[in-house]
């Protein structure tokens, strides 16, 4: 499953490493947009297979951030 950015912003913090298990609803990354921190959660339980972004990257709304399997 692809985790997408719900809004444009900077990738502020990645909180889960590649290969780690994630729960449904668990925040995996925090974006910073308009001086606010926006947590993005995985919708499903699984393993974080791949990060498509790094901390400091800029993402647009709808961009894929990570893949959870």
């Amino acid at each position: 499953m692809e985790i997408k950015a719900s809004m444009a912003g900077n990738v502020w913090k990645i909180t889960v490493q590649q290969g780690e298990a994630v729960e449904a609803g668990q925040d995996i990354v925090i974006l910073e947009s308009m001086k606010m921190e926006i947590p993005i959660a995985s919708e499903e339980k699984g393993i974080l297979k791949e990060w498509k972004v790094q901390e400091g990257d800029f993402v647009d709304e709808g961009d894929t951030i990570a893949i959870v399997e």
Partner: protein
Amino acid sequence: MIKKVLIANRGEIARRIIRTCKQLGIQTVAVYSDADQNALFKKDADEAYHIGPSQVQKSYLQLDKIMEVAEISNVDAIHPGYGFLSESPTFAERCREENIIFIGPEADILRLMGSKIEARKAMIKAGVPVIPGTDHAVDSARDAVAIAEQIGYPVMLKASAGGGGIGMEVVHSAAELQKAFENNSKRAETFFGDGAMFLEKHLQNSRHIEVQVLADHHGNTVHLFERECSIQRRNQKVLEEAPSPAISEELRVNLGKTAVKAAEAIHYTNAGTIEFLVDEKEHFYFLEMNTRIQVEHPITEEITGIDIVKEQINIANNQVLPFQQDEIQRNGHAIEVRIYAEDPIRFFPSPGTITRLELPKGEGVRNECAVTSGDKVTPFYDPMVAKLVVYGENRSEAIDKLKETLHQFKVEGIKTNIPMLQEIITYEAFIEGDTQTSFLRKYYQPTTGGN
């Protein structure tokens, strides 16, 4: 005398400063980032210089680039606005070194008040009441818990270098404090380059009331009365009014005198704001001092007839304040609402393109607006796109005007908090002036949709 000013800021406050400069016959220079290529403030200025990419760290916080533009454009003063470098002692020092007037207080004052811990100490020394708490930095979560036991929960955990509600959190237990300490300290380190934390007792059912002061370089300090700013979300103000609808005349006089005393004690100069928390028994405590122009300054201007930006420039020109305390009168009632590009239910940001913008008009209506139809609201900056200020002969007239003008205020293409503002001003607690910092949490039950 100042003839040409560089405005080291963007958005509505850059426009506001340019407006007064024009009235005073002063030339203006804007600086702008990639994202602000087509911004209104850039067009308002006599000259404009590009200073870098959209990210603030690469543009509006680039002190060297701004000083470079100041030199090329040959300005004799810099107005820093609010946010960005406005409270940077390094910026004020650089200006002094390069013989450019910094329109604000001296660097050492910025440094003193920029540290909330040092500011607390200075206020205790001046005899100004402060909230019970620590008077030194707390190094670890363990120490924080030990101190919190003494103060008693709930406590407010704060970053010493913090601002804009970042790095602060109310905690109710040792477990919460332990978790919050590390998070907020890290955040403060990232945002402000200083992770020092301290603790204060959290005052429930308190109001946020602040006093505007002006001080010249000739030993004159006056206050321009108070502003009530209790309605906040995420510790950021949403609606402000002047005067406060709910304090006694005795407290009003006392707050004014205390603010002047505080400013005098630190030899403050230029415009500043002393923020207080006021509890239900009208006990008041120093919260912090903002050493710059404030977002909500227009409501004070509306009730006193004083142009604060003009006075800032006069003070920077080494002139004597043109009025004494007893000559400053207040009349009527003013309310400001901040229009944020955000979802009115979750308070999440809503960047995008404004397809249509229509501002309210009429007597006693003042718009401080950064944007126009077709403008893009980017994720790079604060979500505030405009301020709507209304004035009435009394509070109920001002509220009626606010209702009417919020209805006329049309923004399409992005979400704004206008539906929330429309809703909260109908609440009985608001109409009665029963506004405390918990107001939104306590009363706001979103019933209106996203747009």
